[in-house]
């Protein structure tokens, strides 16, 4: 199994692409750090009792900070390393969940639209067009507003993360639907699908077992690129204050907090989470580019 994987064309290309290796390394490090945050982080940034205001605004270690705080602290005395690790954990959780919901929703609608065509296709794609015309922020505000109206206040605070995930998923599913529809349109006319239709196989089975595996390549690329987009979107929403509150900081929230210190000399509070976010998003996008190359037979 491992030998076959090592021999495969995809891995061969991977070994030859320094950018992909570097990106994968960064992504794995960040992902590992985020997953293991409760064990790796020196302190728990959600636990206000562990902060000490006396430790506030300490610079990173190499600028003469405290040995306990590698990357310094913010004004509350919160350790930046812990805040970033926990923040990335939250950002990735939201990003992955939103991407998963968006891909399931988008791919099923897209494949069905491409397969059946006609009126169903027209309806789905017009909904997609409308969705695309709504900025993600507006979608998020809308869902947030609906949730606020429907749910009791204490429940609403608990549900901020699901609401955020849903809002991001709703603004990303269109990408999946369009790509899946276009690829299905091509596959639909191939003989192997017609053979299955002639045999009298169930349409849902044809879509799931025959068409889906054949269009997975481009969809996988979209998944990575949209994962990066979802993380960025979460950061944007949190930065604008629509997303997560300051006491459960994601990367976007950390950047928003850092903004206040931009001009007062405490640069690390803004710049370190920002650079971290950039590294994460760029490495995921590079992996997406690499996958695009692997799945494009013409580039081989």
């Amino acid at each position, binding site marked *: 199994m491992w030998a076959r994987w090592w021999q495969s064309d995809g891995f061969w290309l991977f070994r030859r692409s320094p950018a992909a290796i570097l990106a994968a390394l960064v992504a794995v490090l960040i992902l590992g750090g985020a997953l293991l945050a409760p064990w790796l982080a020196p302190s728990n940034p959600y636990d206000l009792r562990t902060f000490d205001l006396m430790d506030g605004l300490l610079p990173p270690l190499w600028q003469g900070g405290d040995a306990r705080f590698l990357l310094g602290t913010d004004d509350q005395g919160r350790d930046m390393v812990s805040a970033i690790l926990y923040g990335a954990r939250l950002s990735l959780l939201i990003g992955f969940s939103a991407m998963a919901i968006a891909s399931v929703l988008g791919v099923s609608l897209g494949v069905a639209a491409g397969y059946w065509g006609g009126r169903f296709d027209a309806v789905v794609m017009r909904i997609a067009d409308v969705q695309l015309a709504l900025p993600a922020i507006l979608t998020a505000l809308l869902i947030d507003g609906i949730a606020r109206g429907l749910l009791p206040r204490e429940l609403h605070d608990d549900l901020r993360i699901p609401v955020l995930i849903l809002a991001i998923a709703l603004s990303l599913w269109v990408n999946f639907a369009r790509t899946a529809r276009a690829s299905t349109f091509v596959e639909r006319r191939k*003989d192997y699908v017609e053979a299955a239709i002639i045999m009298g196989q169930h349409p849902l089975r044809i879509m799931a077992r025959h068409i889906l595996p*054949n269009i997975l390549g481009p969809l996988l690329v979209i998944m990575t690129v949209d994962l990066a987009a979802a993380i960025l979107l979460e950061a944007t929403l949190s930065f604008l204050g629509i997303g997560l509150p300051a006491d459960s900081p994601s990367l976007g929230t950390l950047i928003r907090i850092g903004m206040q210190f931009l001009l007062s000399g405490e640069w690390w509070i803004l710049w370190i989470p920002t650079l971290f976010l950039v590294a994460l998003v760029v490495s995921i996008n590079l992996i997406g580019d690499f996958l695009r190359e692997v799945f494009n037979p013409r580039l081989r």
Partner: protein
Amino acid sequence: MLVVENLTVEFPGRHGVFTAVEGISMTVAPGEIHGLVGESGAGKSTIGAAVIGLLQPPGRIASGSLRLGETDLRALTPEQAHRIRGKRISMIFQDPQTSLNPLMTIEDQLIETILAHEDIGTQAARARAIALLEEIGIENAAARIGAYPHQFSGGMRQRVVIALALCTNPELIIADEPTTALDVAVQSQVLELLRRLADTRGIGFILITHDIGVIAEITDRVTVLRGGRVMEAGATAQVLGAPTHPYTRALMAAVPRLDRKLERFLLPAVEGDAPDLPEAVDEAEYAANWLLSGLRHASSGPALEIAGLSVRFKGTRTSLFHAPEPFAALSDIALSVKPGTVLGVVGESGSGKSTLARAIVGLVNPAAGAMRFAGEGLPYGRVRARSHPVRRAIQMVFQDPYSSLNSRHRIGEILAEPLKLYGIERDPAQRRRLAGAMLALVGLAPDAIDRYPHQFSGGQRQRIAVARALLARPSFLICDEPTSALDVSIQAQVLNLLKDLQARFGLTILFISHNLAVVRQMADDIVVLKAGRIVEAGPSEAFFAAPQHPYSVELLSLTPSLALLDGAA
């Protein structure tokens, strides 16, 4: 004029260096058409690309010399090579649909090419372009030159491509499968044009083709290639008339003959097929018995009967307010197929052959007409239930074996699908056993079952497709151009297989092809379609002996044939 000596072309790749052609020597004299013939992978196109200097990277000329007149083609700088391309060597590609820019008029494309190589005014270039179009047989060229490529038919387009190649007065033209995408009538016109240009202008041609009929029609000399090496070379009449190399002989034997029907083709040995192990023979026997045990004895009436069948497609909308005129793909088709016989359906592209097949299997909905299968009415596609028994009884083999098998499924899964779907066999182990046995029956090695389609050649895939069709235990097989994507020797194998299966299991087959010679080998009866109508129908032997309709006569006379060479053989 062109002298190639000891040419070797290599493609370095991940799995070592692949030698595409090795030690090729050939010459082309002015006014001579030199044919390069061979099956896919023989290196024909690689030689053409090496001569014109357009080898796909990472391909490279490893050794040998290429000289055009006094010029050493290998010593040129990229700059010089670019100037020679087009000016002294031109190229004609296979597909006229893609070798012209659809967004530019013919005029612009011709003038652009002329101006790129010569320092003359636009007016002079335009006059030259019109003269060229007239020379290659486009009537009323001055008026039509402003048209876009899509406004020309396929044959006209290929003429324009030839005009593009000609417009700089090259010494040598490389034609890579110039007629493969064309119908026979158009093909013969284009070939005639090439011959005329060689004779009147003294241009040397390298004609690359897989079709020995084309070689026999117009080439002066021929080089037979296999696996990148020259098998045999010489004057065409001599090589084809009295082939000395066994491969040439096998290749000639595999070409379906228009003038006679063969019981079986002789085959050149092909690697990768199942050896005749006793085990494989047993398995094949098992599959054969399974098929025979499921045969229902056909009733005496016709297996398939079609009356008054018409299929219309929506036309293209030209006005917002008027519904578009429907396009009649098939009109008033009536035919009947006797059980246990093969009905050949022939016609040019666009004649409705495939539409007929698609109407029978229910992929398109007829506008009118009645179909009866084994005496029972056959519902139209849209209202035919998924569980209708006919979906099992009629199976189809498609033209393109590269797209008819799902590339993400293993062969075993592909073959087990009909068994599972039609509830023929419930036990997975037994399904696997039958799938393996059926592979043996169609002549593939048993380990094929765990592999994926891309690991097989076109001919092997087509045999897998046949195996899949057979596993439904059909009584009726529709073969839509089953061999036109295949090399001749592979085509011969697949035709042999179909003949054997038909004889052994009494299958009824509807065999669709544009190639009259292939149909002659297969069919008991024949139907000729033209523009959606049947122009002639009757027993096959009588048809080939004395075709009645003028269209059939024309079609037969235009098909390239090897009959000319029989005297010498």
